[in-house]
């Protein structure tokens, strides 16, 4: 197999070596006006691990994910990605917010797959995949093109490189979005309910791609309603409700023998 960006990203993880968590969230709080969406979240993901965040709508799952790549600014608490404090620099015993440019630079260590795909509508599938490598990371066009085509092949969309998003089905668009996320070789891949906007028969093609990525050792933080995916693929499951992590641990334990009544009630409804 030729050396694809995915393969290299995997090498990077296995070479990581140390025990340092890839994502470390401590005491994270977020309020929107009066509404307290996150009330002190603690969560760690080790390198190469897959963490699934489950929970009812409005429990703060998506907000948590959006704090990790700074689409939202947390009100309190701290996030470290691969040991680097997200959003601030500490100086003179105080935290100073980073400038938009510095935040943009920090975001390069993560990539996000959105519920509604969010492909750039005026660009082809291939151009979408090439966008970040060429215009953010300064990868030469030819190389980005070659790698972009390899990634599209990887998600089974090689023949659709020249199609615009409007010409693709939801499942195809989401697979392009995953290829786009992989193109920057992120240290952490964030998935925000990647299958919730898809027709039932298109869900599996996206989950299959995500399962492959998990097997290859990418660090993934996945907000999802797909209990079966969490059970089969996740290393750790976090169950959130009302802005806190109610229960976490091994998927078999949390999903098959939940210790918390809230988790039991949720699982009864979705299973």
């Amino acid at each position: 197999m030729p050396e694809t960006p995915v393969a290299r990203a995997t090498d990077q993880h296995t070479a990581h070596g140390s025990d340092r968590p890839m994502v470390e969230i401590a005491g994270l709080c977020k309020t929107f006006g009066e509404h307290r969406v996150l009330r002190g979240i603690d969560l760690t993901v080790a390198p190469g691990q897959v963490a699934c965040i489950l929970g009812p709508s409005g429990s703060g799952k998506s907000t948590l994910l959006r704090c990790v790549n700074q689409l939202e600014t947390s009100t309190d608490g701290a996030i470290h990605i691969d040991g680097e404090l997200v959003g601030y620099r500490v100086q003179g015993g105080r935290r100073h917010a980073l400038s938009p440019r510095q935040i943009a630079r920090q975001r390069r260590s993560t990539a996000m797959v959105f519920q509604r795909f969010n492909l750039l509508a005026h660009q082809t599938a291939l151009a979408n995949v090439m966008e970040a490598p060429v215009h953010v990371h300064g990868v030469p066009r030819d190389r980005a093109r070659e790698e972009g085509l390899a990634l599209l092949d990887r998600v089974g969309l090689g023949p659709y490189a020249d199609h615009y998003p409007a010409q693709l089905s939801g499942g195809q668009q989401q697979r392009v979005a995953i290829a786009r996320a992989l193109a920057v070789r992120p240290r952490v891949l964030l998935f925000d309910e990647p299958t919730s906007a898809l027709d039932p028969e298109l869900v599996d093609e996206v989950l299959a791609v995500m399962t492959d990525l998990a097997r290859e050792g990418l660090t993934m933080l996945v907000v999802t309603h797909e209990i079966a995916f969490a059970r089969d693929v996740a290393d750790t499951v976090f169950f959130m409700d009302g802005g806190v992590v109610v229960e976490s641990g091994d998927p078999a334990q949390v999903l098959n023998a939940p210790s918390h009544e809230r988790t039991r009630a949720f699982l009864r409804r979705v299973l």
Partner: protein
Amino acid sequence: MASRAGAPADTGSRPSGLEPIAPRVRWQEFLYLAVVLVLLAMLANFVLTNERLNLPVFWEYLFHPLVLDGLRITVILTVAGMVGGTVLGLALTAMRLSSSPTLRAVSFTAIYVSRTIPLLVQLLFWFFLASVLPRISFGIPFGPEFVSFETNEVINQLGAAIIALSLFVAGYMAEIMRSGVMSVDRGQVEAATAMGMTPLSVFRRVVFPQAARISIPPTMNQVISVLKYSSVVILIGLADLMYSVQAIYSRNFQQIPLLLVATFWYGLVVVVLTVVQSQLEKRLSTGLPKAARQRMKELEEKTDA
């Protein structure tokens, strides 16, 4: 019908073998057409047999040097007013959408002023500016001056007209561009932001290409408006197209034929602009569902061949 005729009907396109569907005849269409044809005949009769209309005068002045000079001024005013207005409008849009409350307030006020003062008032204001501000000087506010000019030297008739049109257009263009920017899908902006693009790159790579496409039709409306509104400059004696035909008919009293001359040229410019608009829209429509369908068709034809 087909089944009663007994003959084996051609069921090639109707595997069911049921009666064919008769096309619907819209009898009222003939009535509409007849009315329109009668009206057109009356108009032709009026134009061709009415000696007072004096059509030869129309042909005589259509390419008259005075008329063509006036047309040149009208086009210059339209282009300069649109360019000036668009540049100012872009600045106002950027300020309006910025995170700074001060800049937002400045932009809001400027847009309000630009759209509130009638074009005619603005034109006369800039033309008569010298009466309240005889000299324009550049320097440190409340401090020393570096250069200074006679106001009337800097702002002549053409200058006053271009300033007035630019300021008049700026408010409208700012709102056109703001609506274009706001029409861009927030999700795409977030996706680009999440990639690690700086806000400026997000604007350049994602927002602008899509906002520009949305803004073309209203912008073209604006160009056509400015083309026609520019005729107010006859009030400060600037010789545009309208001024020229008026100057001619005030001498020969052939008002209608000369107004038709002006109408012809305004109409021709609008036709050119309309062609430009449709070309621009085609160019910028990549990824639109309609363009996508078109492209799909091309791909299919390619694979068939």
